[in-house]
């Protein structure tokens, strides 16, 4: 066990966990931020995506000891009132089915729009590698374009 100071959703928190604990389980089990999901544990599905310094990172394979003072944003911390342009677009397009993957999808989209405020379909193909088992891909693509129109890198 070791103590780690983290910056999660703009708050400083301290956790006492084994250094090899993936950030995913620190979020879910220690900090009760359960919006970050487990899907595979091997960096394949993206359900566990968080933003680290504005980049989409799969938290299931990132040991907490490697996080240091990076700025971690989870789906709970993306916006105060759930009204980030990407979240708005997701609601407007009515993307979710079961919804389980969508937190990760949204954060991946946010990271993409930070890099490329006006992404092409090819940019979306390349960046959006998260699995949606329910198959909401058509709507995800649509929502990203819509968020981009709304100025989604906000």
């Amino acid at each position, binding site marked *: 066990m070791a103590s780690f100071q983290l910056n999660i959703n703009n708050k400083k928190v301290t956790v006492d966990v084994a250094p090899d604990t993936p950030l995913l389980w620190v979020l879910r089990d*220690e900090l*009760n931020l359960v919006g970050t999901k487990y899907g*595979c544990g*091997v960096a394949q599905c993206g359900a566990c995506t968080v933003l680290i310094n504005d980049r989409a990172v799969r938290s299931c394979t990132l040991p907490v000891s490697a996080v240091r003072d990076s700025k971690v944003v989870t789906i709970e911390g993306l916006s105060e009132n759930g009204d980030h342009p990407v979240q708005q677009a997701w609601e407007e397009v009515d993307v979710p089915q079961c919804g389980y993957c969508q937190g990760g999808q949204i954060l991946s989209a946010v990271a993409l729009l930070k890099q490329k405020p006006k992404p092409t379909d090819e940019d979306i193909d390349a960046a959006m590698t998260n699995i949606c088992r329910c*198959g909401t891909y058509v709507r995800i693509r649509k929502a990203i374009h819509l968020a981009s129109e709304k100025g989604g890198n906000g």
Partner: protein
Amino acid sequence: MKTLTKQPTAPKQTGASAISRRNFLRVSALTGGGMMLGFEMLAKAIPEVAADEVLFTPNAYLVIDPKGIVTLMAPNPEIGQGVKTALPMLLAEELDVDWKKVVVTQAPFDAVKYGNQSAGGSGAVRSRWESARKAGAIARHMLVAAAAQTWNVPVEECYTETGFVIHKPSGRKLNYGELTEKASAMPVPEKVTFKDPKDYKIIGKRIPNVDNKAIITGKPLYGIDTRREGMFFTLVARPPAFGKKLKSYDDSETLKVPGVKKVVRWDNVVAVLATNTWAAWKGRDALKLVYEDDSPLESTADHEAAFKKLIQHKADKPAREDGNAEQALAGAKKVIESVYEVPVVSHAPMEPINFFAHYKDGSCELYGPTQVPGRARADVAKALGIPEDKVTLGLPRQGGGFGRKLRTDNAVEAAMISKIAEAPIQMMWTREDDMQGDFYRPSSMFRYRAAIDENNELTGWYVIAAGLNNGRPAIAENFPAGSISNFRVDNHNLSSNIPTGPWRAPTHNSVAFAEQCFIDEIAHELKKDPVAFRLELLEKAKSLGLKINYNIPKFRGVIEKAAEMSNWGKNTPGRFKGFSAYFSFSTYVAEVAEVSVVNGKLKVHKVWAAVDCGQVVNLSGAENQVEGAIIDGLGHAWHTKLTFDKGAVVEKNFQTYKFMRLQDAPPEIEVKFIESHDSPTGLGEPGLPPIAAAVCNAIFAATGKRIRKLPFGEEI
């Protein structure tokens, strides 16, 4: 747990349908943490009602408070199929309220009040179409009666409009909220009149998923998110292969892992209870487990070899026989013969298997994902040896079902571990556990033969099919049954100790690929257009008068619609189309896929789908289901298979067990519903079966290569 601050006085019981706020909330809270969200929403929804004010709740489906706030119950489990939105829409339509102002909450599990609360067989909307609308209409009738009494006017002079009762001659108006007390005293009408579909304001419209806000902000909606005081995160070690059982284990290293609190065995599993998931994970890795063989260790290659033999044999008894297919084949000018193969796949819902269970003093509290809460409770009660009424079960939103949660193994396992460990647990399976611990979509093989006579007519059809633990891999009633005078279906079952079971659109998901491709083969051989050929077969079905299970005009309707939508017969240069049409769960779906294949690389540009599912309830949700079903069916046909090697799955996680990603999904899917006010039919599944064949037939059009084995990603 939330407690009420105000001490209410005794509720005013003005009628059988009256209930006080206190009692209502108590009932809601009884179901435990599972209802916390509903409870909080309700508490929020009914903020400042004096505790003794009367809520109008004529049945278990809806509550109206004196402020006019309407709370609707979603009775069936939500697994991503949209019923938490669609079923309350039925209530709201007939109740005649403003959808924007209703609060929707998941009903507690209560078979007495809500009947069959399951999710499967594309059946929730179908089975509640009458009852949910009736529940809303009853309330509307009682509100109208209450208003008429208040004004002392005949009921016939009153009508409703989005949350108000209006007296037509005088224009007087009362909000539903103002009528709760009086309405509660009105007799419950025996008979109700439903709205005319042309007056629908909610049914058939685009209504967003009611949980969208909670989903996009990461709220704890799912069973896997359950957190309780004193609960242990629990992982289980399960046998590494079918055919193996646990002989012994040594947990001495496990117990040294910081955070691990307990290790218990139940049957063939060893559970590690810890203060966090990671400790449980490491603890489980540190177990020394000894397994022994219990039954044969089967491999996929064995199944394939056995299938190949079976499909050469005539069955003792055909599943269907019209005329004499063997004779037609023997006398044919030409016989077309093809073998189609479909692999095992896993359900792999995005939310892994989990369950919260707390057994204590002869009672058990459960919260977790299940498509069959009634069965889950019964199975748990039986396993624990306690009466069913000692088991409570909360219904969370679920991260996908696809049939996986029709089994109750997760609930039973969690309950038994909780009992043995004497602790509340949140049991979670890792993805690897899920891949090895599923009951799978059975593999199958189909040998088709078609007889063509000298007039270039199709005169005979004979399929011999074999399925893994599936005695009816070829569905005897399926089209083109009834359209060919000599027609025979033979089925063989291959028994296996690898468990199989329903997977989204069971059996349909496999046989549709085989037969819709084979129809395309025949059309090509006869030099007929695949759409025209299907229509011609439907005409024959009309004249032959053999037994059929499909409605010819409806089938024709979707085929023609899909052809029209896709501009069938005209191709963009470099792109090719394929057609497929299939009937399942009482719903007709025709699909056209447009593809290109460049240097062996497939791109699916667009899919069109024409669907006849009767009355569409939620247009947005319905389209989402069909889009999802198309992507699900296409993804699995393209990339996915599960292989067994001596009882162990080879594809243990998503590196090798391949799902479709966004880049392969068709950028555009156009879905059109045939306008209809017939009772709704199934929708969660019927969009899936036709797509594999539509794409494979398009690949044939593009390349001349027939795909007869899935997944086809390895073939092109």
